[in-house]
Structure formats: structure tokens, C-alpha cells
């Protein structure tokens, strides 16, 4: 049991480190370090800087390391990808807008598109020249993804094209994306998982309308996307007609892993605050009441860190990591929310102040308070994650499904309200 690289890993790490040292956008380091918990880096054109850094990486062969070289990657091993991530450090946060494209859309295209399409679309996606988004969730669906209603119907002109009508929601980055993968219902008369079909499309197609969703914290990372008679050629279908659910599983398998990896709990930031703020009993970190609360979060933070190390170790041995990683977001989301509440409590009356210029710790905990409710929902609610752990890890039975084997158009639905 050790944290040491193998000789091959050490050599790779050295190569990475040297290149990053020579090429990283060092002038952004401070701003990137101070961002997080829902507040982005200040004073930076994030998208422009992100694209510049991604382009530089791609030119030197450091983009999407685990993709094949012919599609813009490096053909690297999983552990090499982890090492890259460790060394890229704070600069990796620049790539937030690419996570969905690289982590979910790319692998789906790679698995289901034609060779010609792969050579056309994957390299610019890897290089950050074209940004992709994922058009899955719908207002009526939520956790019940397969309950989607966006219709794809064959064009009446006999062209073989598909005509899309409907609405998606929670689409991260739709407003700056060039392309998207889109799951639709092509047959409402069969049970809900069986009538779905996947496509990709140009986000600038006529009939696509994007409306940002303002969140509690005032930001708008998500969008609603409306489709009105949007035309997609059949060549942009991914997988079989009616096979969309199987395609989506490829996509989603990666989603929870990406989001769960390296989740912040806010504990290091809280410990730091406690070393600087006073309670009625003296410095907060010396106040036994505070200590007794800190300890529980400390071991959660540490437990997530070393659970990640166990997954990396599995990768390093060429194995597939176990299911342990599924706990990341579940633990981190709730912890962050509790930590934010204590941090505000320690600031007492001043905890209400949400101005980074005035507030203790630059209003970082206030940002955490307002961001954490979304963390507990996005990419799988706490409840869905517990179901996943219970079913896939512990082998417990699935929930009773009243909509199983029922034709989609006969399943009860919510009222008109979204």
C-alpha cells in the first residue's frame, strides 16, 4: 500500500509536469483558485480562456487523453488520464464547459456514429473548437428520464429526415454549444423505454430556441431548449430507431462518474475559516462545540478522498473501479449544505452578508449555501443515488414500476404545471 507512481507512471507524470509548467496559463492561477461553489472566476472571459487552453493542449496531444489519436486524443491509459488531471490541477477547472462534450457526447458519438462522422466531429470537440451539449431531461421527466415526450416523426416529404417537436430542460451550456445529442420519442404506443431514438444535431438548426434558466444563486448554467419543427437528417441518428434508451445508457454511465469525481465538500475551506474566526469560546477551531461538528465532516472529506484513491489504484492495476465512487455526490452535496450552514452560523449576524468584498471568506460559504441545493439534485437526486446504490451495489430489488409494460401514451402524467 503506497501512493507512489510506478516507474512508467512517474515518467509520464514528469513529462506532463514539464509541459504544463511551460504552457499553462499561469496568469489565471489566482482567479481560478478563488472560484468554486457556484461562483466563477472573476475578471476572466472564461470561455475564451478555456478554448485557448484546450486548443493548446490539443495541439500538443494533451486533449482527451484516453481517446484514440485519430479522433483527437492520445490513446492514453486510464491511469495516465488521472495523472494528467492531478497535474493540470486548478487549470482543469477551466474545462468545465467541455466536460459534457468530452465525457458524454464524445463517447456516444464514438460508439454509434459513422467513421466519417467521427473523423469530422470528434477532433474539433476534443480541441475545444466545437462545444457539445446533451439534450436529455424534460420538464415532465425529471428523475424519470425515459418519461420524455419530445417527438421525432418522419418528415412528410419522404426525405427520410426527422422532424422534432418538444422541449428539453436542464441542458447545461446549450447557449454556447455548437452541437447536441438529443433523445426523442419515435413511438408512443410501446412501453416507455422502447419507443426512444437518439440523434445529434446542429444547435443552430432552424426551430431551436434556447432560454436560460435562472437558478437560486442567480446564475444560469442550465437552459430550456424548445424544438419547433426542427429537421434532422437520418444520417445523424445514433443507434437504431427505438434503440435510444440503450444509447443513452452509454452516455449516462459516464455522467455520474464525471460529476462524482473529485466533488468538493467545502471542509478544507471550513477548517480554514475556523482557524480565523472567533466564537464566544475563542478561536472557532478551539471551541469544543465547533470541533465536535467538524470531525464528522473531516472524516467524510477524507473518506471521499481515499475512496477516490482506491478507484485510481484499480485503474493503475488495469482494473475497473468498484462501485465505491457512486457515493461521491451523495456525500458531498449534503455535506456542503451542512457546512455552509455552520459557516454562516459562525459568522453569526454577519453570516447574512453575501458581498464578497465584505463577507468573511469572500462570501464563499454564502455561495455554497445557495449552490448546494442544486448539487443534491443535478445528475441524479440524492434519492435516485440511494436507489442506485441499493440496487446496483447491494443487489436489492428495483422499485415497483407501475408504468412497466404500459404503452407510453397510457401512463398517468402530472398536471399542466412544469
Amino acid at each position, binding site marked *: 500500500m503506497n501512493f507512489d507512481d510506478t516507474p512508467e507512471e512517474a515518467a509520464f507524470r514528469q513529462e506532463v509536469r514539464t509541459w504544463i509548467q511551460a504552457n499553462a496559463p499561469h496568469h489565471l492561477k489566482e482567479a481560478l483558485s478563488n472560484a468554486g461553489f457556484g461562483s466563477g472566476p472573476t475578471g476572466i472571459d472564461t470561455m475564451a480562456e478555456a478554448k485557448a487552453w484546450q486548443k493548446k493542449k490539443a495541439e500538443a496531444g494533451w486533449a482527451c487523453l484516453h481517446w484514440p489519436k485519430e479522433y483527437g486524443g492520445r490513446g492514453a491509459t486510464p491511469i495516465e488520464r488521472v495523472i494528467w488531471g492531478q497535474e493540470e490541477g486548478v487549470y482543469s477547472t477551466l474545462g468545465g464547459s467541455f466536460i459534457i462534450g468530452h465525457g458524454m457526447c464524445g463517447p456516444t458519438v464514438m460508439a454509434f456514429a459513422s467513421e466519417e462522422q467521427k473523423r469530422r466531429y470528434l477532433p474539433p470537440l476534443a480541441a475545444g473548437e466545437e462545444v457539445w451539449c446533451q439534450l436529455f431531461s424534460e420538464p415532465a421527466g425529471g428523475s424519470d428520464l425515459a418519461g420524455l415526450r419530445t417527438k421525432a416523426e418522419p418528415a412528410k416529404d419522404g426525405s427520410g429526415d426527422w422532424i422534432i417537436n418538444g422541449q428539453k430542460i436542464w441542458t447545461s451550456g446549450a447557449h454556447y454549444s455548437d452541437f447536441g445529442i438529443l433523445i426523442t420519442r419515435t413511438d408512443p404506443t410501446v412501453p416507455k423505454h422502447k419507443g426512444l431514438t437518439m440523434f445529434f444535431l446542429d444547435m443552430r438548426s432552424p426551430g431551436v430556441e434556447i432560454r436560460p434558466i435562472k437558478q437560486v444563486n442567480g446564475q444560469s448554467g442550465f437552459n430550456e431548449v424548445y424544438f419547433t419543427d426542427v429537421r434532422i437528417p437520418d444520417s445523424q441518428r445514433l443507434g437504431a430507431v427505438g434503440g435510444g434508451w440503450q444509447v443513452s445508457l452509454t452516455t449516462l454511465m459516464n455522467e455520474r462518474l464525471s460529476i462524482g469525481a473529485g466533488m468538493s465538500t467545502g471542509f478544507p475551506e471550513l477548517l480554514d475559516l475556523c482557524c480565523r474566526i472567533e466564537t464566544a469560546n475563542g478561536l472557532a477551531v478551539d471551541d469544543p462545540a465547533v470541533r465536535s461538528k467538524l470531525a464528522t465532516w473531516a472524516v467524510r472529506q477524507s473518506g471521499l478522498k481515499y475512496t477516490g484513491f482506491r478507484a485510481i489504484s484499480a485503474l493503475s492495476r488495469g482494473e475497473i473501479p468498484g462501485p465505491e465512487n457512486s457515493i461521491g455526490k451523495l456525500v458531498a452535496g449534503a455535506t456542503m449544505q451542512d457546512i455552509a450552514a455552520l459557516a454562516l452560523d459562525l*459568522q453569526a449576524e454577519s453570516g*447574512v*452578508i453575501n*458581498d464578497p468584498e465584505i463577507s468573511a471568506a469572500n462570501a464563499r460559504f454564502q455561495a455554497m449555501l445557495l449552490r448546494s441545493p442544486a448539487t443534491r439534485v443535478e445528475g441524479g437526486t440524492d*434519492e435516485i443515488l440511494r436507489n442506485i446504490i441499493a440496487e446496483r451495489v447491494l443487489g436489492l430489488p428495483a422499485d415497483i414500476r407501475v408504468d412497466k409494460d404500459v404503452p407510453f401514451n397510457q401512463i398517468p402524467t402530472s398536471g399542466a404545471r412544469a
Partner: protein
Amino acid sequence: MNFEFSDEQKQLRNEARRFLEAKCPPAAVRQVLEGSEPFDRALWKGLGEMGFLGVVIPEEHGGLGLGYLELCVVAEELGRVIAPVPFGSSVFLATEFILAAGSEAQKAKWLPKLAAGEAIGTFAFAEGAGAVTPRTIKLQASGGALTGVKIPVADGDVADFAIVAARTAPGNDERGVSLFIVELNGPGVTREVVETIDPTRSHARISFAGAAAEPLGAAGEGWSIINGVFDRAAVLTAFEQVGGADRALEMARDYALERVAFGRPIGSFQAVKHMLADMYVSATLARSNCYYGAWALSTGSSELGEAAATARVSATQAFQHCSKNNIQTHGGMGFTWAFDCHLYYRRSNLLALNLGSLSVWEDRLIERLRAKNVA
């Protein structure tokens, strides 16, 4: 035993609820959230006309001359609709300070205006991050003038006057803390709005540079007056919190009944059912504890200290718990700006801090129980 509000009090509740449902729908709260006005002036005026700003102010000073139970009823209803007005600052604090420690002249001057809503008062206490103790009161009072900075002051930007805790004797102890009334539109006072987690309730930084101040209560008695008023305000705020908790639970319940996923209402899943059951438990415990607080407040019981801390701790926990899990029940919709869940989440976290934080009240509760247990 009659551990319940009377029929008259229930009738008052109904009146207040009807009034607030009409005058303070969620759209009115959003107007303050997104608009440029720091509070809902029309609602404030209406509350004054209904007499709700002067429930416990004696009739001779323009109030209704009712008791604290009636004020608790009104507080709960304001909490249900998270009214965007300086009620807590002006009614639970400024009015209470003047009732508790004001001279006859001060009462005659301020109470009628407070009752009518013509003057807004507040309490200026904290001077930065961390729990407020006698040691952290640094603002200096000398020769009838104040010098120093208070931040944050709830409604400090809109208040006409403030009760200010200031240091009148050197050192760190509570005997050097005294209270003053300061008119905030006068010379020597500078105010800046500070952004908070709940923009529907405005806060300010107030700088005093030799501002004229009139003593409130005896010199050196400030800390003890504050403790007394805080106990009263804690009960009243707890009712406000329990009103919010109840409404957040209702919102969650209604959504769970209406929203369908996997072909069934999400409220038929045990994960959601049990989350809501736990919200009900915390809201119910808090309500019962608030009734204890109300009883102690209205009867002038010697148990007020214990009852106030009990109500405050319980109601803070309940409102935070219910507002948080109301968002969770709503899923993705819950954290959108467009749904109202976040308004309750914001308010629950604001009220948890506005009168001293949960951990301070927890400590105060056990200190009081200890004293009783040892006695």
C-alpha cells in the same frame, strides 16, 4: 389546561391571513427581490392601518393594546408569506426596546409613529463577523455622540431610527455597554446597503461619526436590557419561523401530490413520503415549543429565558429543515429562480442568523436548563 389560542385569537389569525394572502402573494415578495424598492411600502402601510404594527403598544400610544399572544399570531402569518417588510426590526426589536427601557417622553415620541408605521426602527448590534459578546461592542459613545461602525443592521437602510448598543466604559465587560436612540437621517450617520442571502429583507452598514444619540435606559444596563428584549424577540421570531416552516411543508406536500414520475405521484415514493413526514415532525415540535414560548411571554413567566431559547432553537431548526427539503422535493424545479422554494430557503437562513445564530441560542438554552437542574 388551555394550551391553545383562544377563539378571538384564531379570528385575528384568520383576519391576518386573509389580509396577507391578498396583499402579500408571492408576486409581492418577488417584486422586492427583483425590483429596486428595499421593502413593500404598500404592505407596510396596510399593516399599520390594520393595527398589526402596534399590537402590544398601549392604546394611549396609538396601539391596539393587545397582548403578546395576539402578536405571536400575527408573527406566524407574516412568516407564512415571508413578508418583505421591516417587521422584525421595528416591531420585535425597536418597539420592544422602547417599551422595556424607554422614558415616558421616548414612548410618547416613538410609539405612536411605530404603531402607525410612520417610523421604522431597528437595532444596531453586530460590528462584523462572529458571535456578538460584550467584548465585540467597540462602538464608542461619549458626550451624547456615537463613533463607530455597525454591520450588518437589518433594515438599517430604511429605518428612521436605531437602538444602538455602544460602549460607555472602557474594557470588555457587559457593564460598559449602554443603549442609545439615534435618528438615522441626521448628521454624522452614513448608510450603505449590503447585499445579503435574502434580498427581500434589506440590510445596511451604518457608520457613525459623532452622530447625536439619546440614552435609552440606564448607563451600563444595555446588556441586560438586550438579553430581556432578545428573549421576547426570540419567541416572536420563532412564530415567524414556524409560519414559514409550515408553508414550506405545504408547498412540498402539494408538489409531491401533483408531480408524476415513473407513472405515479412522487409523493407515493417512500423516500419522499418519509422526507415529508420528518418535515412534519420538526414543524410540529417547533410549533408546540413556540406555544410554550408564547405562554411564557404572555404570562411574564420566570421560565421565559428557557422557553424563548427552546422556541428559538426548535423553530430555527424546523424552518431550515423544511425549506431545504422543500427544494429537494421539488427536484430541479426547486432550485430555479422561477419557483418560490428559494424565497423560503433564503428567509429561513436569514432568520436563523438575524437574532444571533443557532449555536448561540443552543448554548443559552443549556445554560438555562443547567441553572434550573442545579437549583
